[in-house]
């Protein structure tokens, strides 16, 4: 049976037929987009009028997020900006340290067990001026229970005095660059970097295994996707032990699971041939809603953490260059084996030196294994310059840029990390477009909130939190941004033949909008109201997510 949906407007992303009024669906696939008269030719059908006053677009594709965003919502949100939880509740931003403490105190009062840990996330003290959050601040929300608050970057954990005691860190003589000490010679409660965080995190309720792969988190993530109009989302990345894969297969296989998840296997516990073998084994387990077999590699750290690898002239504030997260030989080996076996690799490069290394290694690997259409993708790739985009184009490399960064940390990039000139060229969407490099844009949720329309707004307007337009010339227009969060992102996942546009034969994945994103105006793109999604022909209203 064919269902024909009537809509106020259908934006197809199919350049041959960019607009339609109706779309016909059979067995989860699109049979056509056009007028009712055209689609009626398919035969017996049912006309569904529920979207008659809505705008349909291809389902949004988030090609760099982490399902962990779903996991975090069981903890207390203390971010600076308003944020929507999986149930649709908007949590107002905590604008001061006192507001953070109040939020924690309220949550603490709801916990029956006085010794139970309290966990919170998305703290961003960069907005609180020079003042750092200290254990005494968190003690005001509870001295008897351990409290841990993860920063928005994910790279710093603030804990209270009790948590330091439990972790064995409340002692003089602690000597670690990631553990600042107060005037009393004791840790202030700020724990920077993975090792200091791991010392305390089990005591404050951040269980690593839960964060890595968690059923409830995956379900919450699905709900968030519905609210944000996302029908396909990458989980970038996961160690993907077989237990986790089985759980993901089971959950995504449920008739009511609303999203296609694309988990990437991280080069970490496995490398070399073992990694590629595992990727190939995973690929065989793929289903429609769980696409396995791609690999993620991390080359360097983060810009705001000064651990990204930069070329000359380095960090604007004079900080020493960042860290390599993988030896170049390992990167070369991974690329070569992946090309030989047809496995796609996505590489995290934040700094331009990491981007240059990745391009060098890809070029070498391609000389050994010429591979048209490999679609190796650089993830973040925030500082690439024009010459590097030209190399990407020549090598057939795709890029997934991170415009949300401008809004959240653009002012800091301008003032501190990379300085004005490079801050303005960061995440150079217009250069990617002009050079012809296939590109996507992403949120890196939970680092910034999931929401491709917000990400599109960031790429179109390039506004920072303080309102500065950061790199006017790297802005892209609304139509390009909308194509990027659909077909563009799908292309980097090698799914553009199936999703990303509304055309005959593709999967029936739509985002259902109350407002028309092409007509609401560039400044207001982020205000487009999302009714819900259609995924594989199944209808998921946000109100019921």
């Amino acid at each position, binding site marked *: 049976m064919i269902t024909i949906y009537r809509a106020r407007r259908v934006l197809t992303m199919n350049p041959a037929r960019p607009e339609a009024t109706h779309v016909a669906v059979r067995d989860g696939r699109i049979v056509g987009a056009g007028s009712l008269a055209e689609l009626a030719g398919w035969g017996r059908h049912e006309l569904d009028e529920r979207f008659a006053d809505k705008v349909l677009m291809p389902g949004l594709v988030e090609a760099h997020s982490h399902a962990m965003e779903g996991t975090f919502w069981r903890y207390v949100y203390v971010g600076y900006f308003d944020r929507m939880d999986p149930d649709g509740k908007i949590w107002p931003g905590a604008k001061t340290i006192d507001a953070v403490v109040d939020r924690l105190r309220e949550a603490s009062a709801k916990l029956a067990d006085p010794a139970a840990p309290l966990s919170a996330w998305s703290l961003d003290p960069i907005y609180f001026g020079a003042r750092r959050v200290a254990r005494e601040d968190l003690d005001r929300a509870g001295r008897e229970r351990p409290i841990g608050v993860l920063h928005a970057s994910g790279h710093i954990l603030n804990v209270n005095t009790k948590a330091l005691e439990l972790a*064995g*860190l409340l*002692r003089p*003589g*602690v*000597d*670690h*660059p*990631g*553990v600042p000490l107060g005037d009393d010679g004791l840790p202030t409660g700020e724990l920077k970097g*993975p*090792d*200091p965080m*791991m*010392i305390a995190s089990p005591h404050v309720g951040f269980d*690593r295994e839960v964060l890595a792969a968690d059923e409830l988190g995956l379900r919450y993530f699905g709900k968030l996707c519905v609210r944000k109009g996302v029908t396909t989302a990458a989980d970038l990345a996961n*160690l993907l032990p077989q237990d986790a894969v089985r759980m993901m297969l089971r959950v995504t296989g449920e008739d009511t699971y609303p999203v296609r998840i694309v988990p990437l296997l991280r*080069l*970490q*516990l*496995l*490398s070399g041939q*073992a990694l590629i073998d595992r990727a190939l084994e995973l690929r065989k387990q793929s289903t429609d809603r769980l696409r396995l077999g791609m690999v993620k590699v991390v080359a360097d750290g983060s810009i705001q953490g000064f651990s990204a*690898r930069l070329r000359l002239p380095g960090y604007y504030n004079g900080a020493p*260059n960042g*860290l*390599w*997260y*993988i*030896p*170049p*030989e*390992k990167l070369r080996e991974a690329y070569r084996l992946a090309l030989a076996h047809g496995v796609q690799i996505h590489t995290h490069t934040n700094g331009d*030196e990491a981007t240059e*290394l990745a391009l060098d290694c890809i070029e070498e690997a391609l000389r050994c294994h010429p591979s048209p259409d490999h679609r190796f993708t650089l993830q973040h790739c925030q500082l690439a310059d024009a010459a590097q985009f030209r190399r990407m184009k020549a090598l057939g490399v795709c890029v997934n840029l991170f415009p949300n960064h401008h809004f959240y940390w653009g002012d800091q990039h301008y003032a501190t990390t990379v300085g004005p000139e490079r801050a303005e060229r960061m995440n150079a969407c217009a250069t990617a477009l002009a050079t012809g490099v296939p590109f996507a844009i992403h949120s890196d949720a939970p680092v910034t909130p999931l929401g491709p329309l917000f990400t599109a707004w960031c790429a179109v307007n390039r506004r920072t939190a303080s309102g500065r337009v950061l790199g006017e010339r790297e802005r892209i227009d609304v139509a390009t941004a909308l194509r990027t969060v659909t077909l563009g992102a799908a292309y980097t996942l090698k799914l553009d033949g199936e999703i990303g546009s509304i055309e005959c034969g593709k999967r029936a994945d739509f985002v259902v909008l109350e407002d028309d994103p092409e007509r609401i105006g560039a400044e207001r793109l982020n205000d487009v109201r999302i009714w819900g999604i259609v995924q594989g022909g199944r209808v998921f209203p946000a109100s019921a997510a």
Partner: protein
Amino acid sequence: MSGAPIPVTVIGGYLGAGKTTLVNHLLRHAGRLRIAVLVNDFGELPIDADLIESREGDTLAIAGGCVCCSFGSDLIAALRLLAAREPQPAYLLVEASGVALPRAVAASISLLPDYANDGIVVLADAETVRERAADTYLGDTIERQLAEAGLILLTKPELAEPDERQRTRVWLERYAPVLDCEHGRVPLELLLGAQPATYARLPASGGLHPAYDSVAFDGLGPLDVARLAEALTESSLGVLRAKGVLRDTTGGTLSLQVVGRRAETARVNVAEAGRLVCIGLEGRLDRGGIEARLSGALHAA
């Protein structure tokens, strides 16, 4: 935590510098010492097959009571598991990944009270280290690793031309004392910060490598530990490694350890104190000079 902290040596150096060969050599010559080894390099457990008794997940049981584990992405969890083992390992070697900065690894280990840092040894491949240090991408990482070393082991020295080897050695000596390390052969005492009391039970250093000498003192009274520590790093004394548990003039008991040009002291809580052992190259260890520094520190008390 049961009893004294486990001494930890961090082994750094880029890929191919010979860390794996070194670890295999140590495990092969561990005798009855329960050495634990943590390796990182992305999931490989590169231990010679004949040394492995059994395998359980990421942990290999090695003949003679040693264990080898890979820590993947979570060093802290691996350290916690290791400290909970019965019996506890007597020593721990942590093989840092090829691009890791060893001091950061050592600092992280020191966050757990079960462990005590016992020095950083960085391996340098005689044939390639200078080329690597000039590499656009790797140069600063290699130099940072070398600069953090207490001792540098020059590996595969036999593969380099003698002149080139000498130039490399001189170049490396700006960072730390340099020792040749052919096929991973280096005395355990240099890598493992054995407590003085257990030195007696170590295989004689001569048995491993005739080129080393040691001098030991017992029954020492209270002395200026900080001053002694500083003095033992003077390169003229030829001390490559020193370890002591000493009573300080302030009344406390301090551990002292020297690895090459780096010295560290830390307050410890042990009954027996007043011992010191120094190790160096045969013919280069200045016993008289060490005694003089020791008596200087005793008189300062």
